[in-house]
């Protein structure tokens, strides 16, 4: 599972493409754990290239969000496609996870 990363100050921006569903959700979870460093102060997941996410994928996002909260690391997602956005809305996750329209907006939101 490919996750490309860049760092902006203390913020890690991780980008993943394709789909996250039942077949690769645990791979995705492991890949995320590997790219996040203990001294990252904030994490932004950029979903610009993500075409689809299932509830299994949502679960990974939720787990990550909870881990980040425990470690006092700010967490947000950005650049969701309409269909991915719909999944977040229907499941109500848009009420518990920070969603931003662009990477820039997300990074400035979490760096405050």
């Amino acid at each position: 599972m490919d996750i490309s990363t860049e760092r902006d100050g203390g913020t890690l921006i991780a980008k993943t493409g394709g789909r996250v569903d039942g077949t690769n959700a645990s791979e995705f979870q492991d890949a995320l754990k590997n790219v996040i460093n203990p001294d990252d102060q904030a994490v932004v997941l950029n979903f610009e290239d993500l075409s689809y996410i299932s509830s299994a994928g949502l679960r990974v996002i939720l787990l990550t969000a909870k881990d980040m909260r425990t470690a006092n690391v700010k967490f947000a997602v950005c650049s969701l496609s309409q269909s991915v956005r719909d999944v977040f809305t229907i499941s109500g996750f848009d009420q518990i996870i920070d969603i931003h329209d662009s990477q820039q907006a997300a990074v400035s939101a979490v760096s405050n």
Partner: protein
Amino acid sequence: MTASQEVPEVSYKILVVDDEPDLEPLILQRMRRNIRSGRYAFVFAHNGVEALEVLHRDSDIDMVVSDINMPQMDGLTLLEQIPKVDPNIRSVIVSAYGDMRNIRTAMNRGAFDFVTKPLDFEDLQITIERTLTHMAEWKEALQSRDKLVALQNELDVASKMQQAILPTSFPSGESFEVFGNMAPARNVGGDFFDVINLENGRLGLAVADVSDKGVPAALFMMSSRTLLKGAAIGMGTPGGVLSEVNDLLTEDNETIMFVTLLYAVYDPESGALEYANGGHTNPLLVHADGSSEELPLTGGVALGVMPGLEYRQSDFSLATGDTLVLYTDGVSEAMNSEGEEFGVERLRQIFVDQPPTSAKTANEAILEAVANFAGDFAQSDDVTCLVLRRMGG
């Protein structure tokens, strides 16, 4: 490469079988680097009978290098006997140059490879290494297979648990009928539905999708169902029910599973329907003429995520001839081999083509349409559908 001081990663024990007495010192001398480094340890036997005795005594032997012509028991006979002692041992046969008949027989009897006399020790070492590499890969493959079998067993157990809690008979009355069904996916589990008898002749209807798979998810599913039933019987409003179930689920939720849940309460006398949605897909309301619309979401979050959440509810009235379809995303997100999703539009089209005539036939029409759409493409999620129909008085 410094041989003498290295600690080898793995050490292999090789049994050499040959009646030629000079072979032992020759091997010990020519293979001394590997012996000193600890990579190879050699044990010697002089015929097939002795070799079998060694194999019975010593369970650490990894492979056998054997001559063919030996007294008491020759190499070809030995080849047949080795798997009976240990089927994981691989053998390399030493044959006379050009002795195709014996080489052929040896291969047919399961020899992994052969080397020819006079022994070329570089060739022997290469052959030994290839054999050991093959054995390591084989062992890894077996372990993966065993893990896979164990996983499949767990999923089978989970699947049985899931099937056991789904209702197979449904209440019905003069003015209403209910029918629910689920087509499980092979390696994913997680959907459930339920019909609950409430006081005053009212009906609780639920459809849900747990986020994980396997036995832990099946247990979570059973928990959710039981909690839902308890909360439903104890109190009236769908919003309150979801709230309570959510609080109970988040209390002990170490593994962070969540469940999307749609819960509705129907009053057959008046046709009134109240519903609350926890992260689940909208229900579809189909009219007698086959037209339909999606009922609005109530904005609730999936259950099990965070405690203390409030769940709004919405209400509605079913007209005579209306059919309410509750379903899970296994329906709308079913895929075919072209990567297309079934989608809500196709679901609606089913009833445009053929307005519902009964809850059961409507349910069957949906499952059939999804199966036909997906075709050979493997079903990746449970397909669940619960239908309520208000009939003419």
